[in-house]
């Protein structure tokens, strides 16, 4: 029996009067996830487009895959580096896969559980927004974050950052980033420092071993924030075992960091997918990078301490900068909507992220705060862009 037939067979149970009608939202979610919905609009004029929000979300998930795979490999890579074992590629990847999988499962089960329950209560269709958020949350936290913390943070952000505002499409702040901000402020010991970025224990019984001497699991940004070296030319980033890291290592992503955000290369591959399909705005991405680079250059010129001297490329490759620029700043709901507004919105995110990194040693990762802050300003930016346009046209008409 084909899947389509099966769905059609069980459908009467969920329709009006069926004994499982109270689960209609759930049925509808699965049906429209698996097949293109055949509802047609009942009023007004509509432009037909194949890109409904479910397809959009799936494309974002596809774009996340390179960063996800690279993140998994890096989890294993950092682990085997820290126990001093020369593991094969497959072994490394499987370790990372097993390490990351529980986080992804927890995030989806909790988030989708709440979404389905809410849709059921409100008798609405299940919105697809969490499909992406659920993948983003595990990618922006350290590998050693306890699963129950991810569950609590996911529940917090889905309920208080999304459902109270009216659900998908109405949230002011990026849902995944709220989850991370919650973790960051609620459990700082699990979200920063040098203990959480590299998993040294075995996962599901594989990859056990003794940790090598002199292990240091700090992220490059953490290293430079706590370093007492006077000038950048004397400073060098080092891997967990103390070897010097160069710019290429950071670009490829073989450095300690949150699971999915280490590899700028893989993130840029994802960016290409987003731009080619028109799902993500290239204007936002370019302006975030431009804002970050411009601020870093300015600070280089005025440098009085080590972190102010850090060249722009390091800022762009390290931490969550690239990940935030490509996958978070471009979130169609919380970003500016006007085309001109996107330039301003993105540029200010880049500026703020670098400023927070440089001037607030307590927060080595400024990207999260910068994006959340600008989320709050996106409507204001749009207002002035629209207002400016109205004034300009008015002037032309009155003359």
């Amino acid at each position, binding site marked *: 029996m084909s899947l389509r037939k099966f769905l059609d067979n069980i459908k009467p149970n969920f329709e009006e009067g069926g004994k499982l009608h109270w689960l209609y939202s759930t049925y509808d979610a699965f049906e429209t996830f698996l097949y293109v919905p055949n509802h047609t609009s009942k009023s007004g004029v509509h432009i037909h487009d194949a890109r409904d929000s479910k397809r959009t979300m799936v494309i974002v998930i596809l774009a996340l895959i390179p960063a996800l795979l690279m993140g998994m490999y890096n989890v294993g890579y950092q682990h085997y580096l820290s126990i001093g074992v020369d593991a094969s590629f497959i072994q490394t990847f499987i370790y990372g896969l097993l390490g990351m999988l529980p986080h992804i499962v927890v995030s989806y089960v909790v988030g989708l559980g709440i979404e389905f329950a809410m849709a059921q209560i409100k008798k609405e269709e299940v919105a697809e927004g969490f499909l992406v958020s659920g993948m983003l949350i595990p990618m922006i936290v350290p590998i050693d974050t*306890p699963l129950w*913390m991810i569950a609590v943070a996911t529940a917090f952000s889905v309920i*208080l950052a999304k459902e*109270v505002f009216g659900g998908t499409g109405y949230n002011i702040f990026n849902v995944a980033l709220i989850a991370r901000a919650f973790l960051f*402020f*609620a*459990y*700082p*010991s699990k979200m920063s420092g040098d203990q959480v970025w590299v998993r040294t224990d075995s996962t599901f019984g594989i990859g056990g071993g003794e940790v090598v001497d002199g292990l240091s699991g700090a992220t490059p940004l953490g290293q430079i924030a706590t370093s007492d070296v006077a000038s950048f030319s004397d400073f060098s980033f080092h891997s967990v075992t103390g070897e010097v890291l160069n710019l290429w290592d950071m670009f490829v992503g073989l450095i300690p960091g949150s699971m999915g955000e280490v590899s700028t290369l893989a993130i840029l591959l994802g960016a290409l997918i987003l731009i080619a399909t028109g799902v993500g705005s290239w204007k936002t991405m370019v302006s975030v990078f431009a804002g970050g680079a411009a601020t870093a250059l300015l600070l280089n010129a005025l440098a009085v301490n080590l972190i102010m001297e850090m060249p722009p490329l390091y800022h762009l490759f390290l931490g969550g900068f690239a990940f935030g620029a490509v996958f978070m700043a471009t979130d169609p709901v919380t970003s500016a909507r006007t085309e001109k507004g996107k330039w301003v919105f993105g540029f200010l995110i880049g500026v703020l992220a670098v400023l927070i990194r440089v001037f607030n040693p307590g927060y080595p990762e400024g990207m999260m705060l910068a994006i959340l802050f600008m989320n709050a300003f996106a409507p204001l930016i749009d207002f002035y862009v629209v207002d400016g346009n109205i004034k300009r046209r008015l002037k032309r008409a009155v003359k």
Partner: protein
Amino acid sequence: MALSAKAKQALLGPLNKNNPVLVQVLGICSALAVTSKLEPSLVMAIAVTIVTAFANVIISLLRKTIPNRIRIIVQLVVVAALVTIVSEVLKAFAYDVNKQLSVFVGLIVTNCILMGRLEAFALGNGPWPSFLDGIGNGLGYGWILVVVGFFRELLGSGTLLGIQVVPEVFYNMGYENNGLMILPPMALFLVGIIIWIQRSKYKDLQEATN
């Protein structure tokens, strides 16, 4: 002693459907500032209840003699005098809590609930209903503080009134106190959640949407 319907409304209304914090959204600043632990929340709740009740009674007694143009000054003098008494009593008998509450005891003077009740109720009603209204509003404010303080201390520090209540076993299993609960924003979230629950229970409190 049976209360008349009006007196009952003055006493019980503010606890629920006319709550100063949940419905009128007054007194939020101190609700955020003092509720990180349960003990200061309790003391603050009692202090505000006493001050509101007696300020209401005094202003109600004086209501026919106060010239309208300087009534705010008179109200302030009465409230400030009462707050000073409460503050001195706290310093004498509960010095530790007084230190935790720091400026917020003195700032009861500026608590919007106080001036609100004096203006809206005590100036137009007799001493007995005014007293009940003061008690009601003080407790209406107080129970929110106690609920918020309860959850913030329980989840943020694992204690209640300073006594460890989250068992050691939990910590050994990987449980951690939620640091966000200690920060003021979380009080706002908790008040918001209480408002959410209340409005979904009483649909007539919901604002019309457009």
